[in-house]
């Protein structure tokens, strides 16, 4: 019950700060853009749009979410409440991914994607990975500019190989690279099972790192170690 309330609170928070409005507008814009593309381009263009925006929204917004919570002293209350770090991380991850999944579903339907369930699975997996990375960085930074700068290398090492992989410009062994596995899924094509195993392992590692980062952030609230 506490966990459900937390997700609900996070969703209300997102609605209040215009996330739903923003993504409603962006979804319409992306769908119109895809509609104007030639048939041969549509599926790949949709995959790039889904992977770089709704799936990666955690990486873009998590810095602002955590910094706002810090400046409003919300994290101080979390630290002394019965809420666990695991619940906090899952709530943030799932609440953001709900928007990502809805946007991805609309875009996949608009281009008649081969397998919508696979697109959603790929969006969900990449969404979790990006959000966890966002949480790990956000827990350590002090300003938005720091966060934006810290996410640039992550964007380069995830987006560039994934886009190159989409166009078949990467060697065969790169099929197991987690970003490429997610891109294969979002594109609705066959993915590497070994790669999926690696992605799951990476997810566990990122979750552990996020757990450590958030625990440390909560312990250091107010400049004192609790």
């Amino acid at each position: 019950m506490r966990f459900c309330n937390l997700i609900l609170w996070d969703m209300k928070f997102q609605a209040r700060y215009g996330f739903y409005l923003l993504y409603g507008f962006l979804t319409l814009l992306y769908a119109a853009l895809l509609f104007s593309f030639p048939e041969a381009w549509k599926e790949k263009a949709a995959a790039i749009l889904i992977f770089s925006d709704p799936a990666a929204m955690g990486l873009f917004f998590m810095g602002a979410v955590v910094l706002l919570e810090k400046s409003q002293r919300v994290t101080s209350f979390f630290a002394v409440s019965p809420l666990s770090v695991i619940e906090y991380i899952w709530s943030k991850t799932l609440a953001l991914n709900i928007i990502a999944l809805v946007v991805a579903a609309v875009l996949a339907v608009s281009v008649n994607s081969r397998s919508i369930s696979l697109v959603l699975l790929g969006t969900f997996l990449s969404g979790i990975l990006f959000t966890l990375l966002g949480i790990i960085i956000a827990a350590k930074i002090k300003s938005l500019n720091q966060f934006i700068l810290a996410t640039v290398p992550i964007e380069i090492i995830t987006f560039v190989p994934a886009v190159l992989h989409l166009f078949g410009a990467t060697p065969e062994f790169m099929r197991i690279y987690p970003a490429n596995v997610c891109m294969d899924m979002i594109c609705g094509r066959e993915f590497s099972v070994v790669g999926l195993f690696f992605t799951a392992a990476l997810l566990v590692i990122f979750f552990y790192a996020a757990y450590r980062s958030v625990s440390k952030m909560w312990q250091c609230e107010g400049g004192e170690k609790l």
Partner: protein
Amino acid sequence: MRAICRSFLHMLKFIRHDMMLFAALTAPVLAGMAIKFIVPFIEKSLIQFTGMNAVISPYYGLFDIFFASISPAMFCYISAMVMLEEHDDHIDRYLFITGLGKNGYIISRIVIPALFAFVTTAVLLPIFRLTDLSAAQIIFLSLTGTLQGIIIALLIAALSSNKLEGMAVTKLSSLIIFGAAAPYFISSPFCFCFSFLPSFWMGKSIYDNSLIYMVPSLFVGGIQIIILQRKIMKSLI
């Protein structure tokens, strides 16, 4: 004036601490090098791959426009992020009651970075351009790119009350740069749907190779800046 300079220097110290100053200084050069060297290389590969005479070279003008928009957008975006931080930390309201005032604050946070962006663009565009731009076109693109940067910063500061709203507005406001693509990809008169964007007139000017479109571009940009400036003066408490 002294208060404005001090306030600007304070912001520089703040972003230097974040390494953002270093990023702001190097990013335009890196982006310029990518446009100058990687885009023609991709074009060469695409010509070999497709057997066509030209694939992306007809759109080189668009790359020049985007390059002219990058530095101002980035400089003003960094300033807008600092403004959001100061608003959330309640620092801005203390600055308003000093000799700096609201106007001085806006000048130190948006106008001075925009002037730096104008100079940077005017210097780097002739080096990294992909098409034969005249001196007047370079000045025009630098100027309208700067106006666009100011609009982005004002939009972020005027429409958002905290960091999170700021990030959402940032995402939306950065789309205004893409108005430049309309004259290239949308036939007339439908492309004029985007005529409320200064970037549309930048695209039109380069696409039609006519400097006359500088007038509507400056007019549209100027009107938007005045409206947003008025809104921001009301919203800043």
